[in-house]
């Protein structure tokens, strides 16, 4: 199926860009006329993925984070990619409350929130090369004409 629209955004892994990234994706998603609740879910999930790239992917270094998003008739697909250190054990990382950085007061709930707020979540990662998190949110388009 061909996407109705597509966008790509590259930005530096600074924590100031967490709000920038989620607002950009929410603005793009609004073309599908989602409900406020759906938009809030998307913003939260994007914030989690971007924060993971900043804190875990790049740790004390700085790199580029790439968000690609495609709009379809009834859903939005969002991927968040970094070229950081990658995840050794994806299954463990996805466990609720598990965190590799308790000293930074991380709750370990990032992936759990992404899973709960979005309809699909795929995590691909190669240690030393980076991580791509792809999320799908179905949009009901209840307000569609």
């Amino acid at each position, binding site marked *: 199926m061909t996407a109705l629209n597509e966008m790509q955004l590259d930005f530096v892994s600074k924590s100031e860009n967490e*709000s920038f990234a989620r607002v950009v994706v929410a603005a793009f998603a609004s073309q599908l006329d989602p409900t406020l609740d759906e938009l809030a879910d998307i913003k939260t999930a994007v914030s989690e993925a971007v924060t993971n790239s900043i804190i875990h992917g790049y740790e004390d270094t700085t790199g580029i984070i790439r968000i690609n998003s495609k709009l379809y008739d009834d859903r939005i697909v969002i991927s968040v990619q970094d070229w950081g250190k990658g995840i050794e054990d994806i299954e463990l990382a996805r466990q609720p409350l598990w965190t590799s950085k308790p000293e930074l007061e*991380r709750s370990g709930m*990032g992936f*759990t*929130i992404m899973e709960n707020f979005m309809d699909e979540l795929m995590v691909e990662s190669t240690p030393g090369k980076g991580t791509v998190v792809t999320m799908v949110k179905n949009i009901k388009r209840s307000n569609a004409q």
Partner: protein
Amino acid sequence: MNVSITLLNPDIMKVDLKGEIDHHSSIVIREEIDSYIEKHRIKKILINFKNVTFMDSSGIGMIIGRYKKLQKLGGKIGVVNLSPKIKSIFQMSGLFNLVSCFSSEKEAIDKF
């Protein structure tokens, strides 16, 4: 993120948060609350979410961090005015096992 702290009574400090809670802003909130706790030796914190427009899991980490700090001092944390979305994040992470949710500031002062 705007953090405003006031004393409700000699035991309880109220933290009014305004804006979005993410990894970036949670660091500021943490520093403001911790320095107030240390300065005034307060054991009970009431966090007001009325003007919080967004929160991700960084907010959970920030609250658990304050909980652990207060637990050592025999203190506790309460919250008021959670939006449905923020409430669902609290539920998902089991935060209601650690913090008390009050319906109003008055209830918090009476029952805290």
